[in-house]
């Protein structure tokens, strides 16, 4: 057990996931990830390089992935915006890689040292065109370790750029955690393949080796990477395959935590750092006699539509606090599909929600509901 910083846990999680290549560009509040990688990776014979900007950082990561390394970068909002082109490239070329975005207040330079959750939609839809996306969040230092390790595993399994969203507070806070020992560097064994082995589509990721003759291109291409004669349909098929693969493993990928939800009449749906305040709010509301529970989203994308829909059928209202002016509220509303009223609590001023603000909001919603219930008679309101 020792005190570990969130950004340090990201580094440890990456190493546990087999990371042996880091390319980055300094940016607050993600910089410690890069600084620690620069100290650790050389002693493991792994690669660290500081690139000239964030586009270059993710470009180098993608190049390294095709060179046979497990590669990542970390950044914050402005850098994440710059990386969008290469996130799209990684999706189109089915290149496994991991991108950590420690969110800070935007838009633009915003408040570099203050937390936000304003990149949740950009993480899903930021690059042009369609793509499958896996986006993970964390609400504790231990979580940061776990989801970063998982991101490396899933990047390989689904051949996607997997995105981990942290925030300025989570990156910089320290918690006592027990982390497993750092594993030895993975041995790199080139995989021998037939020269005509298809390199794309539902085939495993095989980096360049002496037995491959792979063409990687962001142009529409078929399973063999051929662009000549490839039509839009081929590219659509590749994206549809990715979406189907993620969809097939929905239960594995879509992770969440149910907290005191079983008998709840009110549900809070929260993610990342905000889930901590929400958990405290649940406890305090329970003490005052209101049956409130929390659904904490660990996986943001794919969005847990089914789980939310079922939850909505069992409660009289849902509140979503988030550190933006209302972003995940939209997929939430779509998933609730009118089964329960949905309220949004948003702020983008760099402050965290305090538990009592969430408590007050739930109490206000509950009183209003009670008033409505007494007028129309009945309803699901508790005594």
């Amino acid at each position, binding site marked *: 057990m020792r005190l570990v910083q969130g950004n340090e846990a990201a580094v440890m999680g990456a190493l546990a996931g087999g990371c042996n290549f880091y390319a980055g560009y300094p940016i607050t509040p993600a910089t410690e990830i890069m600084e620690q990688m620069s100290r650790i990776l050389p002693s493991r014979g792994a690669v660290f*390089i500081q690139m000239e900007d964030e586009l*270059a950082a993710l470009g180098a990561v993608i190049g390294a992935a095709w*060179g046979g390394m497990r590669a990542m970068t970390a950044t914050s909002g402005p850098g994440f915006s710059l990386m969008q082109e290469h996130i799209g490239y990684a999706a189109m070329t089915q290149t496994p890689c991991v991108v950590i975005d420690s969110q800070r207040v935007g838009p633009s330079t915003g408040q570099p040292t203050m937390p936000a959750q304003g990149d949740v939609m950009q993480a899903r839809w930021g690059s042009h065109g369609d793509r499958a996306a896996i986006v993970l969040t964390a609400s504790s230092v231990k979580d940061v370790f776990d989801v970063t390790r998982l991101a490396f595993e899933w990047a390989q399994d689904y051949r996607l750029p997997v995105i981990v969203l942290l925030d300025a507070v989570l990156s910089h806070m320290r918690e006592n955690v027990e982390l497993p020992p750092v594993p030895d560097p993975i041995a790199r064994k080139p995989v021998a393949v037939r020269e005509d082995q298809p390199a794309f589509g539902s085939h495993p990721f095989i980096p*360049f080796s002496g037995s491959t003759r792979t063409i990687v291109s962001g142009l529409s291409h078929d399973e063999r990477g051929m662009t*000549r004669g490839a039509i839009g349909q081929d590219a659509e098929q590749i994206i549809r395959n990715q979406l189907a693969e993620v969809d097939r493993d929905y239960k594995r990928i879509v992770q969440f935590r149910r907290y005191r939800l079983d008998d709840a009449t009110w549900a809070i749906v929260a993610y990342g750092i905000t889930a901590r305040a929400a958990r405290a709010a649940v406890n305090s509301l329970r003490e005052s006699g209101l049956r409130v529970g929390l659904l904490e989203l660990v996986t943001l994308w794919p969005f847990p539509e089914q789980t939310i829909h079922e939850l909505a059928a069992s409660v009289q209202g849902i509140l979503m606090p988030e550190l933006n002016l209302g972003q995940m509220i939209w997929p939430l509303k779509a998933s609730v599909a009118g089964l329960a009223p949905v309220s949004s609590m948003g702020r983008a001023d760099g402050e965290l929600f305090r538990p009592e603000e969430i408590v007050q909001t739930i109490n206000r919603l509950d009183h209003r509901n009670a008033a409505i219930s007494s007028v129309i008679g009945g309803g699901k309101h508790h005594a």
Partner: protein
Amino acid sequence: MPKIGEDLTSYLRQNMMPTVWCPGCGHGNIFRAITESFRQLELDPSRIAVLGGIGCSGRTPFYFNTNAMHTTHGRVLAFATGLKLANPGLTVVVTMGDGDALAIGAGHFVHAARRNIDLTAILYNNSIYGMTGGQEAPSTPLAFRSTTSPFGSIEPAFDTVELALAAGATYVARTTTFDFADMPRYIAEAIAHPGFSVVEILSQCPTYFGRLNRLGEAPELLDYERTHTFLREDAPLLTKEEMVGKLPLGVFRNEIRPEYTKEYAKLCEAQGGNYSV
């Protein structure tokens, strides 16, 4: 010089041909010269990776039967840097256009040169954006026309050689598609050179540059290359007036300086790590 077709086919991905390049375009000659240089160096195609950016030049990787990447506009050297570091045993050849290297990717160009990482950048310079239909490039000479400088360019053009030298490239050469015999030699030297090497090749674009500037077809453009350049070693024989408006050709730098992947290996070793592939 080998005869056409002699022993070059092992490098070619023939099912991707014919190429996208227009009749009279110089890029096919550069492609041929790169292939010649592979043969001269007796490189194993399985140990080569050819990477390209976006644009006419960027299509080159498709035609090599090697591992290949067609990347994003301007960023190809970043991809190449990652690939080379991940697999330093690969010979990594980068094809880029003047827009790729000098406009959108100028930042990556100077930093790859500064690091002196062992990549070979072949810069196809046709003075214009060809793929998008003839727009002004940072290499369009002053007063020349393009579809976005219809009244003539008022911006001075970049001098790739000066830029590469200033940024720290350790092998820098320039030639033209007219000087076909020099191309494979320079490219082979650049590939064999252990550091960041740049070969700028002035290429002709009859479809846009030639037409928009009423310079004629490929033969006239090749003659234009001949009359607007001089060999560097001939400079002492020429008057100042004879050199005005002309670019020098030849090898401008060929020297050994610490190379990035080798320096990185040393750093790892000093830290107890084993970086070797």
